[in-house]
């Protein structure tokens, strides 16, 4: 009995670990999409957060500074998308894809520049168990905070207005383009914490490809969670659970590739099952062009 209980607790604990970066990325995605901008570039933001936090932590010896740098990096990367999406009105999905490619390449480039070796950085000062737990708890705190901000604050109402009907919002005196811009940037800052967690909490280095498509699973979590912070976090926990199962089932003889594929397959099923029955913010993904 004790062994089973221990196993269950281990899986639950692992679920939290696996879900936390997804939660941060998904929250960032929710904020961005509620304002009307689809952020396919979450993967790139995770990469920016992961790499920058490692680089700065290595340079300063302080993981907290590294984390802050990672957040700033995420905000900056998001700002690129925010700019081309709002000011230039380009296709947000295409731009986000380009962002992911560029971010991955920039990080790889950075690895060679700073560490003179491709593939992975050196080990850097990272968060211990305490820091890791703080980041996990912070993810849930942020979920509640974002839920409240969207529902009950003036800025949150403006964000929601821009995501539904930026034209109507503008006729009420709201600057839709600026609101969208800052929502995307703030979302990027939050999402970057997911990358920070991956590189400084779960490990203590950055390696090429460590984000492994989590940014895309986070997108599925946003949809699955019906574009609400609480929903997205729930979905992220769900996907994290599948990732956690991987180790347990692997010992039971299930091929490791199938286990690794589980979260992605789960996202696919969710997508097919939910499509058409949930509604995105009405102006999500539609560039707003002032006439």
């Amino acid at each position, binding site marked *: 009995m004790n062994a089973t209980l221990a196993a269950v607790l281990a899986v639950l604990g692992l679920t939290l670990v696996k879900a936390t970066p997804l939660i941060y990325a998904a929250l960032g995605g929710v904020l961005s999409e509620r304002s009307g901008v689809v952020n396919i570039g979450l993967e790139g933001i995770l990469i920016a957060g992961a790499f920058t936090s490692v680089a700065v932590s290595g340079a300063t010896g302080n993981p907290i500074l590294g984390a802050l740098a990672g957040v700033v990096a995420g905000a900056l990367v998001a700002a690129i998308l925010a700019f081309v999406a709002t000011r230039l009105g380009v*296709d947000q999905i295409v731009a986000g894809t380009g962002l992911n490619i560029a971010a991955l*390449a920039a990080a790889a*480039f950075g690895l060679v*520049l700073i560490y003179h070796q491709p593939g992975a950085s050196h080990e850097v000062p990272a968060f211990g168990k305490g820091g890791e737990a703080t980041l996990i708890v912070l993810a849930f705190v942020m979920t509640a905070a974002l839920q409240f901000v969207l529902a009950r604050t003036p800025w949150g109402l403006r964000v929601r207005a821009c995501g539904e009907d930026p034209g109507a919002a503008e006729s009420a005196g709201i600057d839709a383009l600026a609101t969208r811009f800052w929502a995307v940037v703030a979302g990027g800052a939050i999402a970057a914490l997911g990358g920070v967690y991956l590189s400084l909490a779960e490990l203590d280095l950055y390696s090429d490809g460590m984000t492994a498509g989590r940014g895309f699973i986070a997108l599925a979590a946003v949809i699955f969670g019906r574009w609400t912070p609480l929903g997205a976090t729930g979905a992220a926990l769900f996907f994290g659970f599948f990732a956690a199962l991987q180790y347990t089932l692997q010992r039971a003889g299930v091929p490791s590739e199938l286990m690794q594929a589980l979260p992605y397959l789960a*996202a696919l099923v969710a997508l097919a099952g939910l499509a058409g029955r949930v509604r995105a913010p009405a102006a999500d993904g539609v560039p707003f062009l002032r006439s």
Partner: protein
Amino acid sequence: MSAVLRTRTARDLIVVIVVVFGVGSIAMLLAHVSPLIGFGALFDGAFGTKSEVAETLVQATNLLFPALGIAVAFRAGLFNIGAEGQLLLGGFAAGWVGAQFPLPGYLAIPMVLTAGTLAGGAWGAIPGFLRARFGANEVIATLMLNVVAMLLATFLVTGPLQQGGGGASETATLPKAAQLPDLIADSRLTWAFIIALVLAFVLRWVLQRTVFGYELRAAGDAPLAAKRAGIDLGRTAFVAMALSGAIAGLGGATLVSGVLHRFNIGLSPGYGFIAIAVALVGNLDPLWIIVASIAFGMLQSGGIAMQAEAGVPREVVSLVTGLVIIALAGRRVMASRRTT
């Protein structure tokens, strides 16, 4: 083309050139290399000798197939980010079938290429089906399937469909009969290049001159009007995605049959993603995509030389590619079609 589109094209090209040379120069400076030396090594490596030109065309071919596939999807109003996975599975199918069933030359090559085309087509048909039947967003579906493709191929090649001994992560070497013949002797350039060129011309003809192409473009450019005109949007989406995947799969097959002569998990350095840039730079027109693929092929092959000769990390090429995609994202402002 109307006057508006023409100036946009000119302005876009200027932006691309600025991005490539501007960002490239900054990155080179960060790597303590003079941009003159860096770009010099790049171009020299791309066109210096005959064999280098051949290598540039090899890279161009590898990009041309997925770019054509992505363009077909784009024209239908769909975004196929899954070309990488479709290409991978196409290459796997080609490599495995070719090694498993030795046949004489005139049968082996068609068999191998067909296997790759079908595999890629099936992998493209999945998100196509999800989109047609459930209205599921093909962007996320294809992204997910990219990862699953990699895992599936790894599982198959090291497990049940293993052809080497001891869990090797590649298929057995293709028999000579199944290998595409070289176009330029002693180079990696094969008839795949000709096949790709012909395919581009065929696709252009199909898009502009056939009813199928008309309906596909209508579905992409004005879905509501297309629906009212009797065009079945779901079926068009399904066929477009399957066709897109098939073309990418064919690319993987030619890569395996002509260049590598076996399937290996690492066969693609991201061709399916770079091809997005190629498709956009080519303005989704198959003939211009030929030109764009040569340009990007030049970056790919020259990039390797740039790293070897001038010490500039090859990742600069990918970085610039990503930024080009962002810069050209305005090229295809798709009408809002979000279905989830």
